[in-house]
Structure formats: C-alpha cells, structure tokens
C-alpha cells in the first residue's frame, strides 16, 4: 500500500507540476503577449504554429519556439560576477515557485476504479502558511542575483525587491487572518470543501447556513480580497509594482546581466509565482475547485466525471485570475517607490489589522 501511495504521489507531482503548471506558465506568457497586443490595438504573436506549414494556430507554437530559443542561446556569464551565486540565483527563484504548487488543491478527487486520488500533492494542514513561507524564499534568488551580478542596475533591483517583498509579506499574511478565522481551518483542501458546501467566500449565495451572517461577512472578506490581491501583485513583482525590474529606470533590474536559460528561469519563476498566487486566491476566495451553485456538493462519493469537472473548474477560475493579472499590468502605470512603501506600510498594514478586528467582532456576534 505504501508503494502504491508513493507511486501515486510521484505521478501527481509529475503530472501537476510538469504537465499542468509548466505548460500554464508557457501559455500564460503567450496569453500575456496576445492580450497586451489586443489592449494596445495590435495583433501580437500569431504566426508561430506548426513548422513547415501555413497553419499559424493563432501563434500557439510561440512558447515552444521561445523555449527552444532560450535553450540554444549562448549561456553567457560576465567576467565581473560572483559565479557561484550568479548560477544559484535563477534556481532559487524557480524552485520555491514550483514547490508551492504542492499544497494547491487542483481538484477534489479522482475516483479511478474505487481508488480515490485527491488532486493535491501534499495535503498539509498548514496550506497558506506553507505557501507564504516557501514563496518568500524566492526573494533570496532576486537578492543573490542583484548582489552577484556586480552591476549597479542589478544591485538597485535587488535592494528594491527586498524591501518591497518584506513590506508586502506582512499585509499579505494579515489579509489571510480573517479568512482563516472564518474557516477555522488552515488545510486548503478542507477550506475548499467548506466553500463547496457553504458557498464561495466572495459569492456566498448558495449552500448551507443562514444567509445574513454570510452577507455581512462579505464586507471584511472584500477588504481582505482587495488587500490580498494587491499584495500578491507586489509579491510577484508584477506591474504596477514591478520596481525591482522596471525597464525605464533599471534596464531590467536584477536580471540585467542574465541571458539564455538563466534569464528564462527568472522569467518562469515570476510567472509560476503569479499562477500559484492566482491559484491561492481562487482557493481562498472563489471556492477553489467547487462548481458554481454548489452543484454536486451533496455527493459524498464523487464520481469520476465530477472530479474531472472540478479540475477544469479550478483551471478556468485560475485562468480568469491570470487574465486579471495581465489586464492590470497593461492598464496601470508603475507606482513611485515611496508611494509603494507608503501604500504597504501606512495603508494596507493598518487596514488589514482593523479588518481582523472587524471579522472577530462579526464572528462573535453571530456565533
């Protein structure tokens, strides 16, 4: 039995990280470019399709071509860098981003021949904490890249990234506290199950339980959601908070000196963090894999089709959230550095704290 469990876990790791997450990273780059083009009244990459044919497939081959290009490019290490740290840094941004995918529940469970396989790699009972702990490690990659590159732009990018990530980690963590108080649970699978039967946290209009407290709880939940999303943008270095690599001031920030696959690892790590962030937001606020309207939530033994529907429901929600990331990136200008710090420390920190208190009062009053 142990061997079977081990084999199933290994298969889940391979399938979920390398066949779900990595293609999603690649295609979110494609989506980013296409959506950006549409927003700016352009066309975007629409030709790279099947080689040696006329089929462009709306440019769906572009990520594969990009990947091949990165692999075959010269891997150049400048003479003025600290080679060891320089080589370590890209891995340190990529690895934590991929590791966090272990606790995200991609679906409920697949019922294959009576054997139930939960679609989560590690069913930890500290889900969000694990994600925050590991995801904050990726700042080491950026800082090491900044230091080891031994150039002023990389250095400034690294410094900015450190202070930004530390500031927003606090409001990110605090914005989760009210949610955790409502669920009374830190296991992401249990959180999604709760939402499956009680209605999604942001759309609590179906499921068990009286409606009134759920609607009143919507106020702190909305505040939490706003703070969580904005902090997520800052945490993943996306515009409007992409100060560590802002092109107009710092060339490319911490990865100025990087090329070929090492640059690609930074790039992939950034997108992986974005996808995991969307996954976490969907899991916490939008009901994870649960279907809208609470369809199939009363079934104890979930048939195979329901498991598959749950999996795709989660993917669709996640893609919607990624599109939000992209949409914001191509709409808003970059914040100034002091504005960013002010927003983090003066506004979000206090609002998140007050929100915890508000949630506590509501919970005491209704239970």
């Amino acid at each position, binding site marked *: 039995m142990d061997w079977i469990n081990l084999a199933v876990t290994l298969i889940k790791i391979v399938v979920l990280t390398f066949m779900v997450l990595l293609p999603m990273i690649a295609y979110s780059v494609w989506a980013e470019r296409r959506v950006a083009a549409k927003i700016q*009244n352009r066309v975007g990459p629409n030709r790279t399709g099947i080689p040696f044919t006329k089929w462009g497939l709306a440019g769906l081959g572009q990520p594969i071509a990009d990947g091949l290009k990165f692999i075959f490019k010269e891997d150049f290490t400048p003479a003025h860098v600290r080679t060891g740290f320089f080589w370590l840094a890209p891995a340190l941004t990529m690895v934590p981003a991929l590791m966090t995918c272990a606790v995200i529940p991609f679906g409920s469970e697949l019922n294959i021949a009576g054997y139930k396989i939960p679609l989560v790699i590690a069913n930890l009972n500290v889900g969000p904490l694990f994600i925050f702990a590991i995801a904050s490690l990726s700042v080491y990659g950026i800082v090491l890249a900044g230091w080891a590159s031994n150039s002023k732009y990389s250095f400034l990018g690294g410094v900015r990234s450190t202070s930004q990530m530390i500031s927003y980690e606090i409001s990110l963590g605090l914005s989760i506290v009210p949610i955790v108080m409502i669920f009374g649970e830190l296991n992401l699978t249990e959180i999604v199950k709760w939402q499956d039967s009680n209605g999604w946290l942001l759309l609590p209009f179906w499921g068990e339980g009286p409606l009134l407290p759920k609607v009143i709880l919507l106020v702190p939940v909305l505040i939490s959601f706003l703070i969580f999303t904005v902090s997520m943008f800052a945490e993943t270095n996306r515009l409007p908070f992409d100060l560590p690599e802002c092109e107009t001031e710092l060339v490319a920030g911490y990865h100025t000196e990087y090329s070929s696959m090492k640059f690609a690892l930074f790039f992939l790590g950034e997108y992986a963090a974005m996808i995991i962030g969307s996954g976490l937001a969907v899991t916490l606020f939008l009901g994870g894999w649960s279907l809208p309207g609470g369809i199939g939530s009363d079934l104890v033994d979930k048939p195979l089709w329901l498991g598959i529907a749950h999996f795709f429901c989660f993917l669709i929600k996640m893609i919607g959230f990624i599109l939000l990331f992209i949409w914001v990136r191509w709409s*808003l200008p970059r914040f100034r550095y002091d504005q960013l710090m002010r927003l983090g420390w003066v506004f979000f920190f206090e609002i998140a704290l007050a929100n915890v208190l508000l949630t506590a009062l509501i919970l005491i009053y209704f239970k």
Partner: protein
Amino acid sequence: MAIVVKRPKLTFGEKIYLSSIAKGMLITMGHFWRALLGKGTVTMQYPEEKWDENLPEYYRGAPALVTDEQDRERCVACQLCEFICPPRAITILPEEIPSEDEWAKVEKRPRKFEIDMSRCIYCGFCQEVCPEQAIFLRKDYAITGTSRAEMVHDKDKLYEIGGVREGLVNKWNELK
C-alpha cells in the same frame, strides 16, 4: 526666482485612486474587446498585406540614377553625393567624356557608380545635393541579397531601377 508649483486639490475619491483605476481598466477592456472583434487593429500583416499603394509622395526608398529624354546619363560625376553621404555608401570613379562624343562639353561622367545598400540609410542627402537632378530616391524598400557583394548596386543596376525621367531641367541641351 523660485516658483511654487500649485498642486491640484484632490478629493477623497481621487486620493484613493480606486475610481481612476476602474476608469482606466474599463478603457483598456474596451480596446481589448474591440480588437478581439477585429475592429480598431491597425497592424498590417506584412508579407501578405503591403503598404505599397499608400506610400506617400515623399517616401524615401532606394536611391537610383536616371537618364533624360536624350538617353543621356544625367550624372556628371561631380561626386557631391559621394562627399555628403553620411554612411559613405556611394563610390564614384569619374572619367572624361572623349571630345568626339556628342556631349563632350559636359566633360565628365561616372565610369563606376556604386551604392552599397547595406550601408545606405535612405536619408535623401544625395538627391538633395545633386546639382544635375541625376539621383532620386525611389519607393523600393525591400532591398535584399544573400551576400554583401549582392547588396552593392552598380551603375547598370542603378540606371535600371531609375529609368528615364522626363521634364527635368535641361541645362546641357543646346536647343533650350
């Protein structure tokens, strides 16, 4: 004298950005849907669609030499274009026109006239400086070649591209 810049007074709604963020996001969303439905996109799909019919009068493409109505090459090899050419793309080797020639009084003509199209920046200075109206910028822009030597337009090629141009100043023509 120092000037005190008056900062605009923002209302609370403007200070928390949210309304302006929503407004901006709606604008980009509008552009996105319009482009998705195929409206508003101005990109030209290059090899299939070309701009050729809409090239403006003043478009500066490849430079070329022209002959006049009498089938005389207009260039007198004064080398002004060679001297003014910023990337030094033009090379001229002048020669004397033999005295028995009909146009002997013009005195000089180019034996060799080469424009290296891999250097040319299409600035149009050669056309501007030419006292004989002998060199013109055409509308050709897709100049390709598989080697550096192929990218050099020699005299024959330049006259072939340029062709005959009528109605120019005819200062060497005795009849006028």
